[in-house]
């Protein structure tokens, strides 16, 4: 709320990196809805699911604690559907969606939303675009009408597309001054190469510069169709009324069988460990990321892998925190996570340390992880991790928007309808042996990892090369080029744009 000081100084750096992973991973720790708990008495509201004749999937749940209504819309297309050379198009389409619709120009639409004290925004992801709306319950009908307008009748005025594009370009530049944001972008590009998850979702500067109204309209027309859309409503509205109003608003939306995109196969594994050094000459602290492709959201082993991950770097009494932070004060935060997505996913480690101890920290991060991966897990520690996941579960569906997001994930990833109801029971059933097997299989060994270090090359290059052989060195801005070329192994030293010795 306005005025409350931001809690700037969390004791836990771990939170920071965990949050980064969770954002990428629609559904890393996903759990879904239904009627009653067998296990403890957390109860979720009844969920109504209905598919309209035009293919629109509608999910509704009533909650009455707060006079709010949340609507989460998932359109099944994102950066993965950007045509070659038009990277950033899904993001631009989403950004322009809310800049004028129906009879309302951009300013009139913004005023209409603000006048209700509501929010309505659209964000392009990799596999999907999410449109989120939040209004006071008393404004449900007016809020739904605004949502209908932006999805079905966006104006995409030429000047608004240009404005959105210029803002996207400025955002690409602004992101180049944040070390952790640079680490995330460069890690994705270095890990996945030209696979869709390696593409910067908001594009490259040269691709975004060329985008215009025609491209945006084409993308919207192709993918924004009811048979490619999930609409979830959670809030203080009676389910019958909600479904009726939604049907009224979207029943006549015309479907197109070609709107549902075909999906690529899983990403290729990392064949041999490779290192990318992103040069930030003035940095006094190095950001570190390590990882490899792993499980997708639908993989049956994901839950056991998450139990193991909680022990390694998911919880706050984790092994990584113990070794890197508590015992040696090398860092303020260290975490690990499975970013599980539609066509695949990855396992990643994240930490940071002052430049003089950066390489030591990287080595300890890797050796701690390898030790964890290769030893049978202590049954007591497994029990603790399970208690943690089970205990935190109610907090993950506590708010209407969180519940709406979980319900949307169930639909989008095709999970069982009772995924949320069964979550605690499924966690309880994970044995130490199963968790150990998942860790051994899905946490990458030291010789099959992509490693990204962001910091001054003048100090870090030599020690990194002494350990790993040739290291690829790039500027932060050059990371967007990595996604263009398939990566097969270590590049020759000095192959990219920064001259050695800076």
């Amino acid at each position, binding site marked *: *709320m306005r005025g409350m000081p931001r809690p700037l100084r969390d004791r836990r*750096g771990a939170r920071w990196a965990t949050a980064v992973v969770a954002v990428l991973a629609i559904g890393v720790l996903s759990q879904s809805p239904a009627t009653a708990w067998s296990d403890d008495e957390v109860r979720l509201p009844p969920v109504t699911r209905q598919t309209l004749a035009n293919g629109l999937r509608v999910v509704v749940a009533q909650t009455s*604690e*707060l006079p709010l209504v949340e609507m989460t819309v998932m359109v099944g297309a994102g950066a993965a559907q950007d045509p070659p050379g038009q990277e950033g198009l899904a993001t631009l389409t989403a950004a322009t969606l809310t800049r004028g619709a129906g009879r309302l120009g951009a300013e009139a639409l913004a005023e209409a939303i*603000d006048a209700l004290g509501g929010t309505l925004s659209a964000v392009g992801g990799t596999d999907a675009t999410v449109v989120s709306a939040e209004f006071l319950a008393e404004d449900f009908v007016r809020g739904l009408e605004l949502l209908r307008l932006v999805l079905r009748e966006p104006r995409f005025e030429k000047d608004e597309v240009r404005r959105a594009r210029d803002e996207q*370009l*400025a955002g690409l530049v602004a992101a180049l001054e944040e070390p952790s944001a640079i680490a995330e972008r460069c890690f994705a590009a270095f890990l996945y190469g030209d696979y869709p998850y390696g593409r910067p979702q908001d594009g490259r500067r040269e691709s975004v510069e060329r985008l215009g109204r025609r491209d945006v309209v084409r993308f919207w027309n192709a993918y924004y169709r009811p048979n490619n859309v999930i609409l979830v409503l959670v809030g203080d509205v009676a389910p019958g009324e909600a479904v009726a109003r939604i049907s009224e608003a979207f029943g006549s939306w015309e479907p197109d069988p070609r709107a549902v995109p075909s999906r690529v196969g899983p990403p290729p594994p990392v064949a041999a460990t490779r290192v990318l050094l992103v040069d930030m000459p003035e940095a006094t602290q190095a950001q570190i990321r390590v990882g490899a492709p792993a499980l997708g959201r639908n993989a049956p082993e994901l839950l056991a892998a998450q139990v193991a991950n909680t022990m390694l770097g998911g919880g*706050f009494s984790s092994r990584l925190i113990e070794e890197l932070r508590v015992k040696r*004060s090398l860092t303020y935060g260290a975490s690990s996570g499975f970013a599980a997505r539609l066509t695949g996913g990855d396992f990643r480690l994240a930490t940071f340390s002052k430049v003089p101890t950066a390489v030591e920290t990287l080595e300890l991060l890797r050796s701690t992880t390898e030790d964890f991966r290769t030893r049978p897990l202590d049954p007591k520690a497994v029990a603790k991790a399970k208690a943690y996941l089970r*205990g935190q579960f109610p907090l993950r569906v506590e708010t209407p928007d969180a519940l709406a997001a979980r319900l949307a994930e169930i639909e989008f990833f095709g999970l069982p309808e009772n995924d949320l109801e069964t979550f605690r029971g499924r966690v309880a059933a994970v044995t130490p042996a199963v968790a150990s097997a998942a860790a051994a299989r899905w946490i990458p060994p030291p010789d099959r990892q992509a490693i990204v270090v962001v910091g001054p090359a003048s100090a870090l290059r030599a020690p990194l090369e002494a350990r790993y052989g040739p290291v690829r060195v790039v500027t932060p801005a050059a990371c967007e080029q990595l996604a263009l070329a398939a990566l097969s192994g270590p590049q020759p030293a000095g192959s990219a744009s920064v001259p050695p010795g800076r």
Partner: protein
Amino acid sequence: MVVRTVAALLLVLAGPCAAAPAIVLPVEGRTLANGLRVLVHPDRSAPVVASYVFFRVGSRNEQVPRTGKAHLFEHMMFNGGKRFGPGVFDDLIEGSGGSTNGYTTRDLTAYVNAFPREALETVLALEADRMGFLAITPANLEQERGIVMEERRLRIDNDVGGTMYEQLYLHAYARSPYRWNPVGFMADLALITLEDARRFFTTYYAPNNAVLVLAGDLDPGDAFRRVERAFGGIRRQPAPPPVSAEEPAQEGERRIVVRRRAELPALLAGWKTVRATDPDRPALDVLAQLLAGGESARLVRDLVREHELVTTVDADLRWGIDPELFTLYAQARPGRRLEDILGRLDAVLARYAAEPVPPAELAVAKRQLRAEFVKGLKTVSGKANQLGFFECVFGSYEALFGLLEQWEAVSGEDVRRVAATYLAPAQRTLVLLEPLPASSTTVQGSR
């Protein structure tokens, strides 16, 4: 979430002519014999509880050259007491299905847990053990000193925005202890001694200087009994020394130029305003909302849409025990000049200071504030945090429930008056970020 047996929120119509209902949470407050203030808010909608322990100590209680002490001490609080040894705190809470954390601001330090209701007894025992009997050891201090230095590198030294905010406060204030960032100066972090930590603990971590808030699936009577049992034996201490934050008059604008490697120019302006309990604060809240509270807010419309000068613009008034800053932040688009942005900022502010804001615009801002207020009450943690914050900063948790009425009462003329009174150009401190392409980083300033 969910199927709620007890309405967690009471919506009460406030008075005959009020358009918007007042929002009140059921809260019971008691003070133990040792001075510990306890607030309990029952919300049975999910079998979880949030516990927030607030100590009325933040970086405003520090002096140079021992800045950063309150925050460093917050870190030390997780490393064991008398009954529970090192490493046990996190293990026990997480092993009970709970999560735990802490944060420090200029005004207060908070310790936060969210856990299944069955863990209440464990959490209270852990909190009482460290409040009464923290183990202050050389190992504990040295471990956290290194970690906090990494935290400073992360949040301030290697973060453009963090650097700008630190510079703003350092130059806006001459005398108030709000000057320094709660993370502290790097040199001070190196100086803090075990004796400093011990004295700090005795002075500030006393039950009579703390507020314990419990929100969630609990029975207030039972909760008070458990709290009494766990905390009742901790001894009261003399009241901490008062803080003097009075500022000398500012004789003209202060400009600071930060030159460091960055991609885009940016500016951060700050004006010293009022403390949270001041009668002018609600009008300043409304003004911040009017300026940058939504896509149709005046600064957003002017700087982002009309003149396409900035990537983002933000206005904020922080609520403090002592007079806080009203801040404006704007990041330039590539190729845009800070002077042009400043010109537009001045023009927009001048208009607010010259004429009362139109009623329709005012109504939108108030509605947004109301919606924001409701959204702040979504989680048990959020509610516990706000109740404790208001108790510490506003003097009573009940002030939380008076916010809507305060905002509702703000008139167009009030907004004009506070804009003219507090946001005068001569009273501002301005931090200008001028990006350097090469590899030198400097801060220049004149006061």
